[in-house]
């Protein structure tokens, strides 16, 4: 039996999907470009929110994003490979290199993971810039836009739909993972490492799997980035970008692991544009915004909205309550 709420919910969902699909036809190329950026940043946020489930905040998301972008760029230019073929390779490279680093960091706990993240973010960026092979600080370009048969993804509209494809794949995989029993064990680790290992969860292995999956999707997002930017510059993939990724997640609402990063990315992609603030104040503004959010919207924008909207519209994921949740015990190992 269908209740009225069910029907309204379906209706809201259908309208949302229709709007998302029609967007590039309702706006100009510049706004469409902003939406493409929103999707890119949103995907980075999804991968950050994913490792938060196991209690590991990563400061290197942009670096692995860069690994994906560079893998695709280099395979396309130096090996003349098709864009599509570079996708799985980018993901696997990111996982393989990540594994070598994290097998040292993850057994040593959250603090070491966090430190490694920052150091790696800087090191990978320098690798791209200083090693001749990667094209130097000026970056490396690809000339060829991805294409399937006659469909070439070179216009903003085409790229927008390509982005939707990537985003959809991210959302479906992350959703399926979090819903499964593996997801339950991941969330358990995020809440209490001690209790999780006492029920037989191999914390190191579960964290490793989680972080490597995140690495895979970060790299995929990097490949997508190459499809629309056609150039990879080391400066794009720096530590500051990784910090921005954290902002998206916190501003959107850290308890909403799927919608939160998207809302946060949307806000941070569009608000500065419309405020017409000069780029030189961006960091100051971001700092002020994040402080205000932590004070006044500790559950993020979605947490604030769901307090006001009908409860069925937004079902919060209960397991990460807010930034600085008081319920969590400190990590011990």
């Amino acid at each position, binding site marked *: 039996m269908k209740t009225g709420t069910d029907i309204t919910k379906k209706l809201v969902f259908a309208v949302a999907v229709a709007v998302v699909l029609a967007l590039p036809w309702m706006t100009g190329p510049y706004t469409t470009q902003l939406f493409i950026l929103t999707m890119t940043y949103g995907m980075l946020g999804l991968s950050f929110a994913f490792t938060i489930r196991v209690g590991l905040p990563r400061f290197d998301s942009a670096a692995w994003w860069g690994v994906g972008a560079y893998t695709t760029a280099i395979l396309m230019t130096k090996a003349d490979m098709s864009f599509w073929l570079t996708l799985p390779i980018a993901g696997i490279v990111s996982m393989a290199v990540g594994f070598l680093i994290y097998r040292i960091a993850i057994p040593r706990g959250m603090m070491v993971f966090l430190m490694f993240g920052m150091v790696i973010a800087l090191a990978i960026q320098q690798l791209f810039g200083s090693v001749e092979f990667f094209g130097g600080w000026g970056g490396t370009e690809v000339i060829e836009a991805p294409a399937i048969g006659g469909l070439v993804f070179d216009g903003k509209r085409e790229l927008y739909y390509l982005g939707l494809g990537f985003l959809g794949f991210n959302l479906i995989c992350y959703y399926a993972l979090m819903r499964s029993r*593996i997801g339950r064990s991941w969330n358990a680790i995020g809440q209490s490492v001690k*209790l999780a*290992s*006492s029920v037989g969860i191999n914390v190191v292995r579960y964290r490793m799997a989680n972080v490597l999956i995140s690495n895979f999707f970060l790299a995929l997002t990097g490949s997508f980035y190459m499809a629309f930017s056609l150039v990879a510059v080391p400066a794009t993939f720096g530590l500051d970008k990784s910090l921005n990724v954290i902002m998206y997640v916190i501003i959107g609402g850290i308890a909403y692991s799927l919608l939160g990063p998207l809302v946060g990315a949307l806000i941070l992609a569009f608000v500065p544009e419309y405020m017409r603030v000069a780029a030189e104040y961006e960091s100051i503004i971001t700092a002020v915004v994040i402080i205000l959010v932590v004070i006044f919207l500790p559950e993020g924008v979605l947490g604030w909205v769901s307090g006001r909207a009908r409860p069925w519209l937004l079902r919060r994921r*209960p397991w990460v309550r807010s930034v600085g949740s008081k319920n969590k015990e400190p990590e011990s190992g």
Partner: protein
Amino acid sequence: MSLLTLENVGKSYGRLEAVSGLEFSVDKGTVHSLIGPNGAGKTTVFNLITGTIRASCGRIVFDGEDITRLEPHKIAQRGIARSFQQTFLFMDYSVLDNVLTGFHMRDRAGVIREFLHTRAAREADERAREQALEIVDFMGLSEQKDELAGNLPHGHQRALGVSIALACDPTLLLMDEPVTGMNPTESNEMVERIRRIRDRGVTVLLVEHSMRVVMDISDMITVISYGKKIAQGLPDEIKHDPQVIEAYIGEDTDAA
């Protein structure tokens, strides 16, 4: 038949010997209590058995296998579950989800099936749910099954801690002060449950401060003080042991 044996087990923190030269065995199918004044090293013994901390010396043998150097999750997988002295729960999960998390080791459909949410995975989930509900029911938490663990009153949180341990389907259950902070009714119910857990064939190693509870349900008691064993015996023997009485002088009346 002894299920768990500690041989000359010691743990020191710098110059403090929290546990030293400790020897005792827990027989299969019994409730074995480990008692001693505050700071005697009881929780440390639990941490040693479960691998949370590494022994400085000695050997711990469980079910014929040396588990001294195993990691906590491996020891859990061998069949040792514990409830903690502090209330460790998955605070942001519902009661039922807490117990389901304890099912981590049981009845898995396999990673790929779980990811794809196949029929086999859904059926395994459904079975786990039913069994989790039984445990929740057994521990008297049926009415709270959908509450967030973090919102439960203290007594229920303690009961939930034990429920999670039971979900692991243990051979040996370690309970660290399970009735602490409970009111008398809750406490009596817990004692009754411990008895029923034992009657189902689970061996229980119990640390408890309330002498009334310990004397009531123990099949065997080991007393430690300053990390060393000072006595072992049946409840009636321990009650009248002069060394035990001496160790407890200065403790609160309930313990004396």
